[in-house]
């Protein structure tokens, strides 16, 4: 029984990790684009982007997944059968908005003198951003990003409501057979995975501590 549950939960957890990983693939670059939008000189870009971030951060993720699941059907009469994909898109957009604010904070915390030093040395805008600003931003955002990553691991549990066969869904199947303990056992998977993430992030912080 124990091995069967372990095997089932592990399969579910791999789905959770898949959702986690793919969300990052979407949200990490998309967040950077959104952060550029929210810092744009052009008001017609800046304010709509800021409004989007406000809406996404201001409403529950669960509600957003509902909208992603049902809106296409209600508005355009399209039914999307791939629930995993829909959840992934909702997660991706949600986390991109959170990341964008962390990026923005990081980018704006770099002193103007760094840009000016690059400029008087003849570096192009892209070189200044890529070689001078971004490496310093990465160091500053590692701790808050660690927080977000860990939150994301746990947020993937929301997908179980939409028939994504992730670990909580698997555990709740046992629940319907009046077996409760797999639920608590599922917690161990999260705990272990977040433990690994925590170690990884402290490793990164250490790697980046060669300068101040």
């Amino acid at each position, binding site marked *: 029984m124990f091995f069967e549950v372990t095997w089932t939960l592990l399969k579910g957890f791999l789905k959770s990790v898949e959702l986690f990983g793919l969300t990052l693939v979407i949200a990490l670059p998309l967040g950077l684009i959104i952060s550029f939008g929210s810092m744009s000189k052009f008001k017609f870009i800046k304010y709509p982007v800021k409004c989007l971030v406000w809406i996404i951060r201001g409403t529950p993720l669960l509600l957003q997944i509902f909208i992603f699941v049902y809106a296409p059907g209600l508005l355009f009469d399209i039914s999307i059968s791939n629930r995993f994909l829909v959840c992934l898109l909702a997660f991706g957009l949600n986390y991109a908005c959170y990341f964008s604010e962390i990026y923005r904070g990081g980018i704006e915390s770099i002193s103007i*003198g760094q840009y*000016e030093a690059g400029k*008087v*040395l*003849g*570096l192009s805008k892209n070189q200044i951003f890529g070689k001078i600003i971004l490496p310093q931003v990465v160091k500053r955002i590692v701790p808050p990003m660690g927080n977000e990553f860990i939150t994301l691991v746990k947020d993937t549990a929301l997908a179980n409501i939409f028939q994504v066969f992730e670990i909580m869904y698997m555990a709740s199947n046992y629940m319907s057979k009046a077996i409760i303990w797999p639920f608590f056992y599922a917690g161990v998977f999260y705990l272990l995975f977040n433990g690994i993430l925590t170690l990884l992030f402290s490793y990164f912080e250490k790697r980046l501590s060669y*300068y101040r």
Partner: protein
Amino acid sequence: MSILEVKNIEKSFNKTEVLKGISFEMKEGEVLAIIGRSGSGKSTLLRCLNFLERAEKGEILLNGEYIVKSDEDNFSIYPEESELCKKGLNFGMVFQNFNLFPHKSILNNLTLAPILVNKISKDEAEKNARAILKRVGLSEKEKNYPFELSGGQQQRAAIARALCMKPAILCFDEPTSALDPELTGEVLKVIRSLKEDNTTMIVVTHEIAFARDVADKIMFMDDGQIIEIGESKEIFYNPKHPRTKEFMQSILKNE
């Protein structure tokens, strides 16, 4: 021929006029010190020269060639960004707060721009950088990161970084203002040694004694205008304008 000619530069921030028609010339190898109270426009002038700010009116010529030309109403016409960026390399800049890149070693601070902008090889860039580090007395620090250096050492590294781009004119914006008094000497010494090598320099400074000893010319600015410009000893010992006299007296009283 003058290496630098500045004609009628005007600049304002939000309708506050900061520079009200600045004109001067410099010869190659000359050291010009710009002195004056805070808010007199000295730093803004320097920033207009290396294009960190754009003047609204006036012209800037380097070696007799227009970099910034003006139309009939004296409004400045700047070249395209890429062209301006190239021309800007003629002006090296040393900042009050050093602005070294904290994530790069001292050597990499020096080689970054020569490799990326001048497209020279890493080996050559490092060779040049080491020679310049030696000149400012930082040979031992090439592997260190800026935070591991004292303020004076950081500023010397920043001077070395500017020199690596071989600018025609080296500009200093209050290079010793962020330093503890006991550290200013080493930086001033480096600037002195550059003068001996005939480096053309513009130094915005509060170090009045330094200006007297090192500069060929002193420019006294007040309220966005040049009040007086001339031979440094002349300005220092025998200022003509009452405002220069007043400023010199207030400075000397404090020293």
